[in-house]
């Protein structure tokens, strides 16, 4: 059984490279984003998530919605274990796989497609044997054929995306976290990616997905969280959340 439990969780991060006073003042006026304050040492501190409590259980397909800087990515990173809460408690049962940034993490341009499959697979915690078992599926999904034996630097950006997507979706976690990944690739790949995503979504116990596409949320999710300035504005049915989000605009 997979379960995610957050209790009064806040994530604050200090910003170290802003020193001038005027810049601070300017930053304070920016409307989007979390609450910006100063800590005791006069570092700028961004409260990216503010006192969040929620529980997700088996079968939850949750869409995260909100403006840029409302805390969607921070929330996913928190659930992925990259960020630790500065206050509050978090408890997660179940294996997690996070597809946060497809291209930049663990794609080595000088290496061939095959080498990248092994590298990325190992980073995700697969053993050599497990990678070998999945190799055929991954290769089919990329549709790259002989290109896999060539260095990734010779690929087009769409091809890099195909490779990264195929590897990232090759493991079946209990909890799947996704950040904005549908919007690239040609028509043929988008179709394939869609099918793969649907099967992956169906196999995962809990899915949390951040996206700006209302259609995707309506299609895949049964719940939605509306984030605003790092706070949960609404957590419940998809329709209500989307409506609330639209009226805000």
């Amino acid at each position: 059984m997979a379960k995610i439990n957050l209790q009064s969780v806040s994530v604050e991060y200090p910003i170290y490279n802003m020193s001038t006073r005027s810049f601070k003042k300017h930053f304070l006026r920016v409307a989007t984003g979390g609450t910006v304050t100063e800590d005791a040492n006069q570092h700028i501190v961004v409260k990216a998530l503010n006192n969040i409590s929620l529980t997700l259980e088996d079968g939850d397909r949750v869409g995260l919605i909100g403006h840029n800087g409302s805390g969607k990515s921070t929330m996913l990173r928190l659930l992925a274990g990259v960020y630790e809460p500065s206050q509050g408690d978090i408890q997660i049962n179940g294996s997690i796989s996070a597809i946060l940034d497809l291209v930049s993490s663990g794609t080595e341009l000088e290496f061939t497609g095959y080498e990248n499959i092994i590298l990325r697979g190992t980073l995700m915690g697969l053993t050599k044997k497990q990678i070998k078992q999945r190799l055929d599926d991954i290769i089919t999904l990329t549709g790259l054929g002989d290109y896999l034996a060539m260095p990734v630097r010779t690929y087009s950006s769409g091809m890099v995306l195909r490779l990264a997507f195929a590897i990232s979706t090759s493991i079946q976690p209990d909890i799947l976290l996704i950040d904005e990944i549908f919007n690239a690739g040609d028509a043929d790949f988008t179709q394939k990616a869609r099918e793969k995503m649907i099967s992956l979504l169906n196999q995962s116990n809990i899915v949390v997905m951040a996206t700006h596409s209302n259609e995707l949320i309506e299609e895949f999710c049964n719940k939605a969280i509306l984030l605003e300035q790092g706070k949960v504005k609404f957590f419940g049915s998809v329709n209500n959340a989307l409506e609330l989000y639209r009226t805000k605009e």
Partner: protein
Amino acid sequence: MESAADHLKADTLVKIPLQRKSQTLLALADLIEGFKRWPVWFLLACQDIKLRYRRSVLGPFWITISMAITVYTMGFLYGHLFRSELQTYYPFLVSGMLAWAVISSMVLELTEGFILSETLMKQIKLPHSLYVHRIIARNIIIFFHNLLVMIPVVIIFHQTAKINFYTLMLIPGLAIIYINALFYGILISMVGARFRDVAQIIRSLIQVTFFITPIMWNPAILPPQKRYLAELNPFYSFVELIRAPLLGHSPTWGNWIMVTFITAVGVVLSFSIFKKYRARIVYWV
């Protein structure tokens, strides 16, 4: 914590008791997990080396060749400069340079240990110590490439550079260097990520250290009452951990005492700071 407790009562959904893990346990878990995930850092270390020599014909053996060129030429010049007998000076310099190369490049690379791991760190949850292991492993692999430079030296100067039982002391020596690199590495990587000037400071300190540590010069040429200048330099003892076995003798008791002391300080200091700031590292990079 009080507001969290209030929340517990209000929220009927919460039935699972929440365990707040202590920072000590989390830091310990990070270290243990770092060792356990060795396939990951070993692969990354090998990848780093392959990447550097990807399109060159000789590949990683450029490491050996450039080291050979450096130490062989230095050996002749400085042997004459110090008016030492080549028979003793040459093996001394070559083995010392091998030791210094692995120690100094580890220190230098570790100053950016976390900074250069930023993309990975922000995408995948991996133990922080894993990035440090990666750098150490990479340098140990390079060290074994460099070790080939010793072969002609051992053949030509077989009277002073011997292969015997003491050569095996290289293994515990490297193990101790590994432990130190891990703990001091975590410390240096953290400080390097938080205070960006530190890398520059360490860079210049390392240069000075090379000259004040007995690598190019034998501590025996110091007058006896000034020997402590070498003996009290921790880098001297660490260099000896590699150099002595390569020359076929054991490091001295003084070396062992110094190394044990430095290791103990490193483990305690590094762990206490790691424990306190581990969760912040991701925001520093």
